[in-house]
């Protein structure tokens, strides 16, 4: 190879490395696609703050919105709480269940949160963290959209908006349960 070619080859060889770095530094390391999307949702059996049993199994045939939250999760959980309550009231008669799972929290603080936002959908604490690890959550708030057949179809990280909830739930409502 000629001397001139070599002179270009060395700086050129740095390009793939620069390209990799340019890509790597733009990617948010916190945004990890969940391997659970498309797979059956992990079952759970919790007890709500009201003392009622709450299982995923019992919701089969409905579209389930599982929301992981905590009372210390300010402001995101505080922003989305009214959205969840609104959506629950709007969709409950159309076959949608909103389920709140309170993780890494204190019971009193969580119950105050529920009172403050007048949440009427079922909410249960996950004291051992097993449900949150089963769903592969890495923070709050995180929301999973489960179709009528019990499969996780989407995961939303961060505060929900009416828009996000509607665009996730509406298509699932149109699907058959069988």
């Amino acid at each position, binding site marked *: 190879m000629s001397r001139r070619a070599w002179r270009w080859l060395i700086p050129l060889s740095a390009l793939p490395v620069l390209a990799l770095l340019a890509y790597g530094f733009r990617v948010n390391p916190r945004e990890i696609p969940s*391997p659970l999307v498309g797979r059956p949702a992990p079952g759970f059996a919790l007890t709500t703050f009201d003392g009622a049993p709450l299982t995923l199994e019992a919701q089969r045939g409905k579209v389930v919105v599982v929301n992981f939250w905590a009372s210390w999760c300010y402001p995101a959980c505080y922003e989305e709480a009214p959205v969840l309550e609104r959506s629950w009231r709007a969709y409950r008669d159309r076959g949608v269940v909103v389920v709140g799972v309170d993780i890494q929290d204190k019971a009193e603080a969580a119950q105050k949160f529920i009172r403050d936002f007048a949440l009427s959908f079922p909410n249960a604490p996950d004291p051992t*963290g097993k449900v949150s690890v089963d769903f*592969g959550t890495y923070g709050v708030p995180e929301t999973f959209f489960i179709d009528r057949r019990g499969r996780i179809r989407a995961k939303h990280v961060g505060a929900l908006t009416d828009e996000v909830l509607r665009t996730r739930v509406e298509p699932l409502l149109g699907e058959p349960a069988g």
Partner: protein
Amino acid sequence: MRVRLAPVATLFLAVLLIGAARGAPAPARTVSEAEVHEIAGGLRCVVCQNLSVADSPSEMARQMRAIVRERLEAGESPTEVVQYFVDRYGEWILLSPRRSGFTLLVWLAPLVAVALGLAIVGVLVWKWTRRPASTEAARRVDPAMRERIRRETEAEP
């Protein structure tokens, strides 16, 4: 029948330690803190920045360690426990990438780079050390030239 406990306990402990060291399925029920620590040390604490589940004081990490212990106690092998987390979080949860598939590249690339670097250095060193030899060869002059040089230098007063 009376069984002497000390040798049995020693044997049991030895089996446990060998099992933990080799990463083989540990006997169900008794799980040492070291074994939990070993697995937790390879898992990324999901709520921290660059900490393992073993090193993090967070509530989430504490719960994950409890899950590791529980699954080991239920008779799962360390590999199965790690797979449980990978199934839910993806390979992102592993602090060191797996030495197979695509992530094998991460392990091989530095070795390839070092080998390539050594090869380049080797070639350059070989070239540089050969140059004096070639100039020596060029210095060899034919008898006619030598005669001419001698004549011209001797001609000087």
